[in-house]
């Protein structure tokens, strides 16, 4: 755990699943993400990445959501 204490959503590869462990910051952008259904303990899956690996498309609740890497980077992930 010394090298990478937390994995974030941006680290997940297409096809990988994860569960939201928490958020790096609680600010307006995090609240927006939460309002869209990405909350602690929510399972999600990375579907694909756009060209240049940014943004990424994830499956959350019952729909597909696109977010940029720096937005995904604030979402901590556990397996």
């Amino acid at each position, binding site marked *: 755990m010394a090298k990478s204490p937390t994995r974030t959503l941006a680290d997940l590869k297409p096809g990988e699943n994860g569960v939201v462990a928490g958020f790096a910051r609680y600010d307006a952008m995090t609240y*927006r993400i*939460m309002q*869209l*259904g990405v909350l602690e303990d929510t399972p999600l899956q990375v579907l694909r990445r*756009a060209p240049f690996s940014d943004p990424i498309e994830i499956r959350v609740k*019952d*729909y597909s959501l696109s977010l940029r890497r720096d937005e995904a980077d604030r979402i901590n992930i556990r397996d």
Partner: protein
Amino acid sequence: MDRTASTPRAVTVAVCGNPNTGKSTVFNALTGLRQKVANYPGVTVDRRTGVCRIGARELHLVDVPGTYSLAAHSPDEMIAVDVLLGYVEELDPPDVILAILDASNLRRNLFLLGQILEIGKPVVVALSMGDLAARRGLRIDPVRLADELGVPVVPVTVSQGVGVDALKSALIEVQAAPRHKITPALPELWQRVRELIKTGVTRLNAFELERAVIDADYALERIAVHDDAALRATLEQIRNELSQGEPLPALEARRRYQWADRIVAACAEAIPPAPARWVGYLERFSSHPVGGLVLFFAVMAMVFQAVFSWATPLMDSIDAASGWLSGLIATHLPPGALASLLADGVVAGVGAVVIFLPQILILFAFIIVLEDTGYMARAAFLMDRFMRACGLSGTSFIPMLSSFACAVPGIMATRVIPNHRDRVATIVAAPFMTCSARLPVYALLIAAFVPKTTVLGFLNVQGLVLFALYLLGIAGGVFTAWWMKRTLLRGTTPAFLMELPAYRLPNFKSVLIKMLERGRIFLRRAGTVIFTVAVIVWGLAYFPRSDEIDRRYDAVAAAVTANSQDDQVRAEALAAIEHQRAAMQLENSALGAIGQAIEPLFRPLGWDWKISAAVVASFPAREVVIAVLGTIYAVGSEVEETDAGLIERLHSSRRADGTPVFSLPVALGLMVFYAFCLQCVATVATMRRETNSWRWPIFAWTYMTAFGYLGAYLTYNIATRWA
């Protein structure tokens, strides 16, 4: 939908829901073409209202901008809250809220509904996308859902006509029915707010106070306008007390999704999934790393082709029709100011407006279909990283691409951009893209002054110059967007959180209604400005009229008629005399005077008064410069850009000292000027309509004119030194 128009029996209904729930399809199914679109004061959000008649009763519908949450963080987002609370002037406060819920994505839709239920107004739920949910193996029991929510639930499938009538009845009946019981997401906050209201310190209702406590800055600022600082302090104190351990917005989201999970568990049942085959194919193909890009470029090429070339025959026929009408007027009315006003002012002015309609309608047919099928979001997803290089997001790509055909539909297409600052930056950058009206100007000047030689064996210099002009336009637009996002429109990077909706078939009627609406908005809002300016420019070019010039040319014409034997020679001579007369009258007109007056201003660019007058006359519409040059150089205003006579006249045009007016540096500078300058009153009028103020069009016009002048100055001087 104005207050005066409402009858006592009319029910005002606010139609709201998440984006991509089929909200506009339901709205269109209820109202048909009985809709009006206007702007909300101060923001760039469409205010769509419509009427639905049920026997003797009338429903007045207001479309609330699609939103995922009532937690507003910008004026544009606040509109949804304002409409629901009845704070928008000219709109009646809603009697009923119609909430559209997407059955295939119920939990996220319930998040918004939970907030709406707390407003306390009667609510009717329209459950859409039931077919999509069923294909995914999910059935939502509407009766159970209605029981859980305490409000009527009507399943609606507009394409099959299912549920529309039931929805109308429910909207009428719900007012008389007992009101739903509010189960607040944050009962502790609800309690505190109720106590506060009992003390009588505020006129605001529980919902508003609750939002002010949760959302802090924006909602609170608005409250400060209505109420005093003491209330503000009280609300802040409540927030501090309640947000121990977890910030209130996070707590609200968690509680609402817990509630939504409970509701979904109670009313959803699993059924055998039956995925639509074409959706599966399309999803797999469009998300394939190679296939997806191929499809993307194919779709973009088609959109570009459509606005660029499919519209051309229609535009040509409009052009021909207006030419035919002008000719008809000229043959049936005695020559004079009235005939000229009708032919060159009114008909040409109306033509200048209508000419844009084919491009607007074709582009919007594509954009609406792309949006309604769900592909638009995927296009934005693919282009986001690329567009971020100039400070924008993927949603700016289609408006920019469309602007290569014409900036007017391009700017109208910026509605797909959710972020206000991105939208303004795109609107100002869009007119830099080389539109089809710049092409004839480039074609004339390139044909006349750029040598027809090849370099490196195969590269045509004329083609290279045209290509360079396209690149120049792109560079100008990219720089402008980048610079504006860095200075005038600086702010925190907004979240680019975008739903990628499931692919679905668009509703034909809904597409048609939206397409016609775009055309109508353009004709009404931009058309009046364009028409007015066209008539003003006609007046400047026509008045004052010199009788002396007329007498002189009448005498010459009479002499020619009397002396020449050959009919053909006589006709040609008479035409030349008429062209000379027009040239002299223009020189004598207000426009000629303006050209001569401002010539010193343009002298650093190497222009004489004729070029100056032609450039000034083409500020309403850049392509007009060819007709004006045709008149000034006495070859007639009906001249084509490839006309050998005009090119010949431009070449032989001399200054007082005998040097040619048009040199290669002057021509290059002129082309750069046209590449950058905002010479299009239709674009200016559309900017005004889309930003809902004169501020940005005035800025864009000034900025682009300065950009064009500077570009032309540098080009002329550098080219002169080299040549």
